[in-house]
């Protein structure tokens, strides 16, 4: 059974499955699914601690956002300890992290963004030659539409307008003074 657990191709798939579940938020990737798909010959009671070990290692690497020197040192330490990993497994993990690091980091960053983000922005500038309230001529006004939302969902569309105060970089709308 140890031979099965050392298989590189299966481990690569396992790490992928772990990453999908832990970082990219894909539901339904259970221990049983991973075992039956990748290590069908391995009994569940043997698979469980193996899975936990790999999950722990992957989470440690991702949590510390390890660079390649740190990764090297960390994995070497894992191969040396009791009940650790083999050097073949270390190589697979290293290769996995190097190719998935950016994507995993992106997902982790998204997990900690709780405020809405800017999903879209469009604008136009109008030139109004007449106004009901005053005799202003050629008052340019900027109209902007902001799409605000999280995780692909637009939560709010904000349409707003403003005049320029005449200075580059200063774009406060004119304050309405209430009587």
């Amino acid at each position: 059974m140890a031979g099965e657990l050392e298989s590189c191709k299966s481990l690569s798939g396992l790490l992928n499955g772990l990453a999908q579940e832990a970082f990219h938020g894909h539901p339904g990737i259970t221990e049983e699914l991973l075992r039956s798909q990748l290590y069908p010959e391995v009994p569940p009671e043997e698979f469980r601690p193996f899975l936990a070990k790999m999950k722990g290692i992957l989470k440690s690497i991702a949590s510390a956002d390890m660079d390649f020197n740190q990764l090297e040192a960390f994995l070497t330490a894992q191969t040396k300890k009791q009940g650790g990993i083999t050097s073949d497994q270390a190589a697979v993990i290293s290769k996995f992290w190097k190719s998935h690091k950016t994507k995993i980091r992106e997902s982790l960053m998204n997990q900690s963004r709780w405020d809405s983000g800017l999903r879209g922005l469009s604008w136009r500038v109008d030139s109004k030659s007449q106004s009901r309230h005053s005799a202003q001529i050629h008052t340019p006004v900027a109209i902007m539409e902001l799409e605000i939302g999280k995780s692909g969902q637009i939560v709010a569309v904000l349409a707003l307008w403003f005049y320029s105060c005449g200075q580059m970089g200063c774009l406060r709308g004119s304050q309405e003074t209430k009587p």
Partner: protein
Amino acid sequence: MEGSSEPLLDAKAEVANQLLDFQWKLGMAVSSDSCRSLKYPYVAVMLKVGDRSGQVKNKSFEMTIPQFQNFYRQFKEIAAIIETV
């Protein structure tokens, strides 16, 4: 600029909100429960907008640095165009 009247817009347009104020802050997310070493900068923006009835609301959102750079570039473009119109 004097004369803060609402622009007379196309009857079909629903542009109700006037941008009254724009506040920003540059933050750095250092660490989180899911990632000890997060280290990413972001810009948080707070817009103060007033609707037709005079009610003032705050709208806030976050942007990554590249997003903010694009956002800023758009505003600069608007400012340049407003000058020339």
